[in-house]
């Protein structure tokens, strides 16, 4: 085969890298979902009336922001496995369980996302005028409808740009999950490197896939942001 032809199908690893890309996409969407939930719960705790909850949420965000993402991933994967087996042993479970690297990665990076998203949500919830919530209470609305119908449509406008930036960070950090053996873009590229001895080619391909994903995300965020401003008069 011609050298140029080999480049186009990536020395036969094209489909393999594409599968890795699909894995990365599933991974980052799961991280986003997990992280948004952590962030909302965190913001709820920081804004609650209970001092203990406030302090807990504050400690959580300070600690998670200070730990390298790589340590979070390795710690949850290896530490979590040990913890799980220590917990199961007294229950009479004889086997050895290992945490799924996908789950470990999603929990680790989702927690990191959530720690940063907590303050994004906190600030954007505070941006909704208090009188609206009081008015909703006055007409007899419960907490969840207040959140869904009053807070959410207004806070996502404020929160979107920051949440989008955090999502771009998670996308890049997802490369670290290759370290615990999950077959995403980086792992697939390293595998191809081992067979072809072309490290620069394959890591550059990986770099451009990440750039492509970032571009798609950025455009999507802009579109969603525009949608969030429907019916709002802008200066």
């Amino acid at each position, binding site marked *: 085969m011609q050298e140029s032809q080999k480049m186009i199908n990536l020395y036969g690893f094209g489909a393999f890298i594409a599968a890795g890309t699909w894995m990365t996409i599933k991974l980052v969407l799961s991280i986003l979902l997990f992280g948004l939930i952590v962030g909302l719960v965190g913001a709820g705790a920081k804004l609650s009336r209970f001092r203990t909850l406030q302090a807990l949420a504050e400690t959580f965000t*300070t*600690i998670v*922001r*200070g*730990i*390298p*993402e*790589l*340590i979070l991933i*390795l*710690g949850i994967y*290896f*530490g979590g*496995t*040990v*913890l799980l087996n220590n917990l199961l042993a007294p229950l009479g479970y004889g086997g050895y369980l290992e945490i799924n690297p996908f789950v470990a990665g999603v929990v680790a990076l989702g927690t990191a996302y959530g720690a940063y998203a907590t303050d994004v949500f906190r600030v954007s919830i505070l941006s909704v005028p208090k009188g609206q919530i009081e008015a909703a209470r006055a007409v007899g609305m419960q907490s969840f409808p207040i959140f869904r119908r009053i807070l959410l449509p207004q806070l996502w406008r404020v929160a979107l740009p920051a949440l989008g930036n955090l999502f771009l960070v998670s996308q*890049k*950090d*997802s*490369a*670290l999950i*290759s*370290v615990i053996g999950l077959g995403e873009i*980086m792992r697939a590229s*390293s595998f191809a*490197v081992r067979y072809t*001895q*072309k*490290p*620069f*080619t394959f*890591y*550059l391909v*990986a*770099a451009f896939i*990440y*750039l492509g994903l*970032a*571009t798609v995300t950025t455009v999507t965020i802009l579109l969603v942001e525009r949608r969030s401003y429907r019916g709002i008069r802008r200066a």
Partner: protein
Amino acid sequence: MDFELILKSMPDLFRASLLTFELMGLSMVVGLTMAIPLALMRNSRNRWLMVPSFGYIFFFRGTPLLVQMFLVYYGLSQFASIRASLLWPVLRDPYWCAIIAFTLNTAAYTGEILRGAIKAVPHGQIEAAYSVGMSRFLLFWRIIGPQGLILALPGYTNEVILLLKGTALASTITMMEITGITRKIIAETYKPLELFLLAACIYIVITIVLTRLSNLVEYHFTAHRRPQESVISS
């Protein structure tokens, strides 16, 4: 919990944190030096200056640090000309490869932070400086520089903390910094829980110290924004 192991591992981890500081410090200094011309080029109206710096910042902010490090450490060996060059002893050393990758990465992020800060200096001040006949260098040195640096400080502190967390990646190319040593001790003892907790604590303490330090610097340089205490108390 094996507390004895935690105590026993502490000296090794403290020694390893020196390497973490070294990786972080060197990349910070060189990265900041590169970031200043990058930011100026990015703000320039000359397309030949703007486009390359835009491309550089776009690539290094848009791709994972791990990919960048692998491109330098594993990638460069693909080219026979590099393997034959005088630089090869440097480029095959994981220590220098890590520093090169961290430096290129942090320069891009810092460049973008500085660009924003330079733009935030009020336009009227720049016009005023020109109208009294200041040269471009003096304008930068006296007007834009000092104000821009203070405006950039919170963003830059964040970047330094990200860089600290980024140095953990050096462990994937065999560097024995905090994370590297942690993983080595785990491989010997198989006590991941204890050691990752210990490593996490060390990183958190460094982060808290860095944040405090930055707050002190900001406090020191923003005396003009504080109300004058003597006036208020009298």
